[in-house]
């Protein structure tokens, strides 16, 4: 595990969340905007369509009103007495009398209306009267051969509307008109007696239609019930085959609205069928123009789409960062715990699952800390008891030797010595037990070692001499019990025993600035550098010396045991230190704190 790996992994959680959020947000925005756009467009399209339909209806109504007027003129003329008389009279004479009256009526009707270009009555014998007495018939355009004339006869009495055409029945007059014609029935016989013609100046209709604007390119056109074009702004293009309208479909259509059936067509037709004439007024829209401000709508939507993208992505990054940050913090705390720092507390603060996780983590950390503490304590306890056991182990060995000595003395009838030795042994053990206390005052410790030395003095006689030089003022201070005895034991067995002549052991004490220093000095064989170094290493925590040399494992262990016990009770600043010289004796210094009182450590 390198250091960057947890960081990277963490990074990828944040990034994948940000990515997922972004993808979702962007998809939703795209979808929403497309739907909104098409809805807006559809709404605009419907509104525009409705508007077109209204315009078309308006045009139809407008034209209808003109045709209604023409029709009412024709009804009026038909019923007129002079006109009836003019047509009904057999003789040219009566015709001559009725003519001016009828003509005056017609000119009255037309005079007020510029849009009516001609009102005329034709009898079946070539005679005619019109709104203007100046009118002469075009000799090359016989009225009876005109289509409006024939159609009126066919319909016998009902009015007929022609498509737009050039009216040429009057000499030297060629005018685009819509013709309403009607056969006039004789009021007495009920038989057809002539044909009435009312011409509406086509200009009127052209102006109505061309004034309507349907977008930039849209237009209005009119077809009659046979599909003939009445009005079309591009009529010539249609006749010339340069343009076409789907006229059969328009004529057949009952709908008010449809799109041109031909594929790829951009045209939309809005149709109004006029009641009286059966004409169809058709509004033509270009589909692409239907939504007038389409570009503005598009731009607005595109702008907001992009704005929302950026907002959504920033939010995703923020949210993923907010979510991953406490995780990151938790992770850092965990790493600290990994390194052994159990005092770390993950301060997440958020009230969500991760916050809970942080709290749980904190609880876990303190639990672990407590547990560790307990384990350490237990370990310490265990070691203490082990040491106690070890301390006990010293005794049988010594006891055996002492008892052995006592036996020998008893056998030698040395009663005084037996008493002295036995009582010293008894005191030694009493002090060893010391009511189970580990820490005792120096006085007791010195007494303990003096009993031990008494016993050994009896055993070794002249071989061993000793002096106890611990000053009285030190005797009230505390010490771990049974520390001097193992040192003295070492001094006897390794220093003096191997020395020729009497060896002396001096136990001294001094109060220093740091505490108290007791010392055990012998003038035995001492140690060479190798031995000393090995001993110091053992004291420093190395493996007790296993073989070779003059120090037995037991004794090495014993010295170390003493050192450890001192350190265990008083801290690492205290313990043993050796100084020695080959054939120059050895001095062990015991550093202790200056503690007075009964307090059990």
């Amino acid at each position, binding site marked *: 595990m390198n250091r960057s*790996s947890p960081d*990277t*992994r963490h*990074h*990828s959680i944040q*990034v994948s969340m*940000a*990515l997922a959020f*972004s*993808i979702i947000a*962007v*998809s939703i*925005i*795209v979808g929403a*905007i*497309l739907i909104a*756009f098409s809805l807006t467009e559809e709404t605009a399209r419907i509104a525009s369509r409705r508007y077109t339909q209204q315009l078309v209806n308006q045009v139809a109504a407008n034209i209808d009103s003109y045709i209604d007027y023409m029709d009412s003129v024709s009804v009026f003329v038909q019923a007129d007495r002079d006109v009836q008389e003019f047509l009904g009279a057999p003789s040219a004479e009566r015709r001559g009398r009725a003519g001016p009256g009828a003509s005056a009526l017609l000119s009255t009707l037309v005079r007020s209306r510029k849009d009516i270009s001609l009102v005329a009555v034709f009898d079946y014998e070539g005679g005619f009267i019109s709104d203007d007495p100046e009118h002469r018939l*075009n000799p*090359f*355009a016989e009225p009876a051969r005109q289509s409006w004339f024939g159609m009126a006869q066919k319909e016998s009495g009902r009015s007929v509307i022609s*498509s737009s*055409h*050039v009216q*040429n029945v009057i000499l*030297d007059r*060629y*005018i*685009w008109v819509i013709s309403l014609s009607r056969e006039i029935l004789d009021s007495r016989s009920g038989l057809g007696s002539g044909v009435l013609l009312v011409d509406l*100046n*086509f*200009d009127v209709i*052209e102006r109505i239609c061309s004034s309507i604007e349907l977008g*930039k*390119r849209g237009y209005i056109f009119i077809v009659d019930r046979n599909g*003939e*074009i009445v009005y079309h*702004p*591009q*009529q*010539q*293009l249609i*006749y*010339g085959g*340069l343009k076409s309208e789907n006229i059969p479909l328009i004529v057949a259509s009952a709908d008010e609205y449809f799109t041109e059936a031909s594929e790829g067509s951009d045209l939309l037709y809005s149709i109004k069928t006029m009641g009286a004439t059966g004409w169809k007024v058709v509004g033509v829209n270009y589909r692409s123009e239907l939504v007038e401000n*389409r*570009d503005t709508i*598009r*731009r607005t*939507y*595109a702008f907001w*789409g*992009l704005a929302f*993208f*950026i907002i959504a*992505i920033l939010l995703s990054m923020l949210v993923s960062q907010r979510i991953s940050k406490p995780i990151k913090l938790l992770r850092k705390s965990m790493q600290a715990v990994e390194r052994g720092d159990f005092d770390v507390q993950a301060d997440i603060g958020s009230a969500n699952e991760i916050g809970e996780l942080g709290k749980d983590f904190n609880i876990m950390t303190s639990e672990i800390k407590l547990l560790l503490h307990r384990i350490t304590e237990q370990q310490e306890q265990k070691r203490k008891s082990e040491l106690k056991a070890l301390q006990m182990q010293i005794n049988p060995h010594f006891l055996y030797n002492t008892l052995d000595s006592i036996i020998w003395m008893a056998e030698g009838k040395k009663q005084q010595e037996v008493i002295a030795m036995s009582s010293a042994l008894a005191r030694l053990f009493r002090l060893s037990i010391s009511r189970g206390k580990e820490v005792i005052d120096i006085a007791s410790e010195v007494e303990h070692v003096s009993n031990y030395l008494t016993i050994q003095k009896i055993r070794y006689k002249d071989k061993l001499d000793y002096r106890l030089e611990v000053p009285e003022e030190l005797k009230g201070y505390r010490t771990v019990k049974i520390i001097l005895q193992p040192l003295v034991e070492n001094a006897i067995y390794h220093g003096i025993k191997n020395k020729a002549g009497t060896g002396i052991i001096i136990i001294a004490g001094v109060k220093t600035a740091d505490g108290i220093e007791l010392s055990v000095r012998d003038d035995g064989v001492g140690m060479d550098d190798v031995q000393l170094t090995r001993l110091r290493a053992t004291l420093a925590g190395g493996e007790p010396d296993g073989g070779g040399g003059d120090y037995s494992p037991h004794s090495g262990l014993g010295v170390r045991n003493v050192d450890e016990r001192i350190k265990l009770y008083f801290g690492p600043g205290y313990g043993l230190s050796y100084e020695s010289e080959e054939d120059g004796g050895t001095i062990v210094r015991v550093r202790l704190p200056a503690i007075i009182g009964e307090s059990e450590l």
Partner: protein
Amino acid sequence: MKKIAPFVAPAILLGIIFIGSFIILYIAGTPAQRTPPRIAAVLKTIDSNMEFWEVVKSGMQTAATEFSARLEIYGPWMESDVEGQKAIMDTVIRDRPTVIVLSATDYTALIPYVERAAAAGIPVITLDSGIDSAIPVSFVATNSVEAAEKLGHHLPSLLEAGRSVAIINHVPGATTAIEREAGVRKALEKDGRYPILGTWFTNNFLENAYAITIDLTQRYPELGAILAMNEVSTVGAAQALVDAGLAGRVKLLGFDSSLEEIKFIERGVLDATVIQKPFAMGYLAVRAALNAINKIPQARFIDTGSVLITADNLYLPENQKLLFPFAE
């Protein structure tokens, strides 16, 4: 994988933004169309009394509206004002329109201007009257030869074989005069049954047409038909035939349309006339101009068509609009 992650993530983010923007922009469509093309039309005349040109203009206007183009129409007052048209061309080229539609008043005088327009990268379309140059992308006009042939083909239905015919033409050297006569002669010579007496020129004076016709009827009693190559010649000849009492007996086939001609057709004096389609001409010229801008290949000559009018089809709906283009 872990090492490239820091580069991959922003790339994916950018990708998302890009794809999202692309979808929205695609559906929302390309914002703001480009500015509409500017078509400058330099006509032979802008005199609103000239019905032919008025109809051409309305055809152009219709196309410009339909194809969303801006149309500006210029021209001298008189068709004969070549210098005036040159000056107008000069101004128009300097104004740098997208395309120019030119109806030349002179076959050669306008060539330098068309060359200048080409040098400035402005395509030119010629309308009705072309120029002697290969520069214009297309020439939109009536096919005069073909139009005249229609008269030649119609003649046998009016005239028994063997009767001779005379051609009354307007100005020697004028393109329309040459091409129309060529068309008539081509059709008649192919037919072979009608000897051609010759061609007489009116120099575009009605009186000359009248006088020539009177003279012809007197000099050639066997004369069966007169073919008049423009409106002035036709009306002059028709009047002469009426005055000579030969209306209907000497067949008259003419060109173009006017109220006078229509009346003569109604009276049976004028048996047929060939008319052009100025509305289609204007419309197709604008369409050709837009094609030229968009580099859409198109024919160098665009025939706008012609129609043979007789008393029988005079009032057919499709011909009424050609003969009487305006409601008033």
